[in-house]
């Protein structure tokens, strides 16, 4: 447990010292949200209708940048090998990094919400529920994303490989998070929010467990 906390502290500290990177990724996500509106045209009703989808697509695209970055630092100068020599389990390293990535992605998602509200006139007053959906959704991106980033950071063509592996896998996250966010923005007369949130939670549980199970094999030498 203490190994996990130390690993988490290390990764959060690295992210804090690389603040410029986080700001740049946020700018990328916000630009994506701006560009999506050009695909629909200046139809404010249609934009509001699709706002949740745009938010999550923007977040998904931005997440590949931040996930890839989190492991590129470890591969440079063989930092990962040094970490593995420490008396901390690979599992602790994985969960530390996945939690740090989760925090960063959730922050990014929360920061993109005002952009969505302004551009698409798509707001909600159920802010706590929205925060919950963002937390559940970004957890689903972070767990498999961290596992795959560990592989792709050491492969050739890593910029292409991470999205190629991650995107098909997180289809359920995208579907459920978009649906849940849409229900919050456009109203939820049938009370469908809970089943979608449950689906997200189930995905999270399965992939956080699988990641911890396999990360040791992925980074072993």
């Amino acid at each position, binding site marked *: 447990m203490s190994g996990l906390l130390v690993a988490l502290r290390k990764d959060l500290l690295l992210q804090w010292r690389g603040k410029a990177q986080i700001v740049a990724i946020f700018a990328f996500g916000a630009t994506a949200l701006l560009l999506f509106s050009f695909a629909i045209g200046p139809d404010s009703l249609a934009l509001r209708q699709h706002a949740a989808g745009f938010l999550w697509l923007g977040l998904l695209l931005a997440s590949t940048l931040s996930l890839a970055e989190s492991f590129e630092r470890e591969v440079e100068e063989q930092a990962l090998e040094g970490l593995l020599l420490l008396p901390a389990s690979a599992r602790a390293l994985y969960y530390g990094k996945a939690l740090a990535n989760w925090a960063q992605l959730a922050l990014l998602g929360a920061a993109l919400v005002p952009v969505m509200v302004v551009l698409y006139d798509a707001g909600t007053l159920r802010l706590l529920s929205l925060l919950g959906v963002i937390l559940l959704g970004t957890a689903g991106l972070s767990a*498999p994303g961290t*596992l*795959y980033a560990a*592989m*792709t950071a*050491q*492969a*050739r*063509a890593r910029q*292409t*490989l991470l999205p*190629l*592996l991650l*995107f*098909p*896998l997180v*289809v*359920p996250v995208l*579907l*459920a998070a978009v*649906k849940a966010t849409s229900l919050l923005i456009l109203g939820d007369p049938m009370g469908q929010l809970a*089943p*979608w949130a449950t*689906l997200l939670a*189930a*995905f999270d549980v*399965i*992939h956080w467990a*699988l990641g911890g199970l*396999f990360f040791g*094999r*992925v980074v*072993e030498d």
Partner: protein
Amino acid sequence: MARVAHNRTPHALVAAGVALLLAGSYWGLLKAPREIFMGDVQRIMYVHVPTAWNAMLALSFAFVCAVCFLFTNAWKWDNRLEAAMEMGVVLSLLLCTQGAIWAKPTWGVWWDWDPRLTTTAVMVFAFGGILALRAFVDDPVKRAVWSAVACIVAFADVPIVYFSVKWWNSLHQAQSSPQTVSRAFHWPLRINAFGILFLWTGLVALRARVAALRLQSEIHPPVPEQKSAPAGAPVPGGA
């Protein structure tokens, strides 16, 4: 080279598969009765449904290979994993193509966001991505372990994808099985199912041999004999 088996069973399987497919397709196209509502378009079912069964089977076999590799570290499972994953992706692609050909005259569209169709497309991309990963990793050990892990994770994801798309949207016909189709359609379906099964198992066995040969050429210096290899170290070769 000596350890790569040279028996002819895979060739026999491929030949039997082709013969069965020819027989089943002849039966399905010319002898089976026309379906009342869909007409001749329905005859694509004689390859479509067996392809669906076999695509699932091939990817399930890939999953078994991945689990066996992670437990045993034996290279033969990695060779089989590569072969089975390629076969699963090819069969899934065929499945999507056949489905689109059937859907256009029946539903009026090439594509529909129905759970099984969408899940198959997601599987093509998920397992195709793992094949890309294999292509971009040069170290054989890392390539084997990573693709086995990715295969297990992707396989575990398939049911979640299926249920999430099912909740999201649904239109596809109920699954076809001998219980849901008329007796007149049984035999061509069964013959083609075994035809495709023999064809892909034979091709996977041959492809695994190719993978074993490539592995031998990748590992330097030339592979030591199994007896002199250090205990626990994976020994390349063996399809």
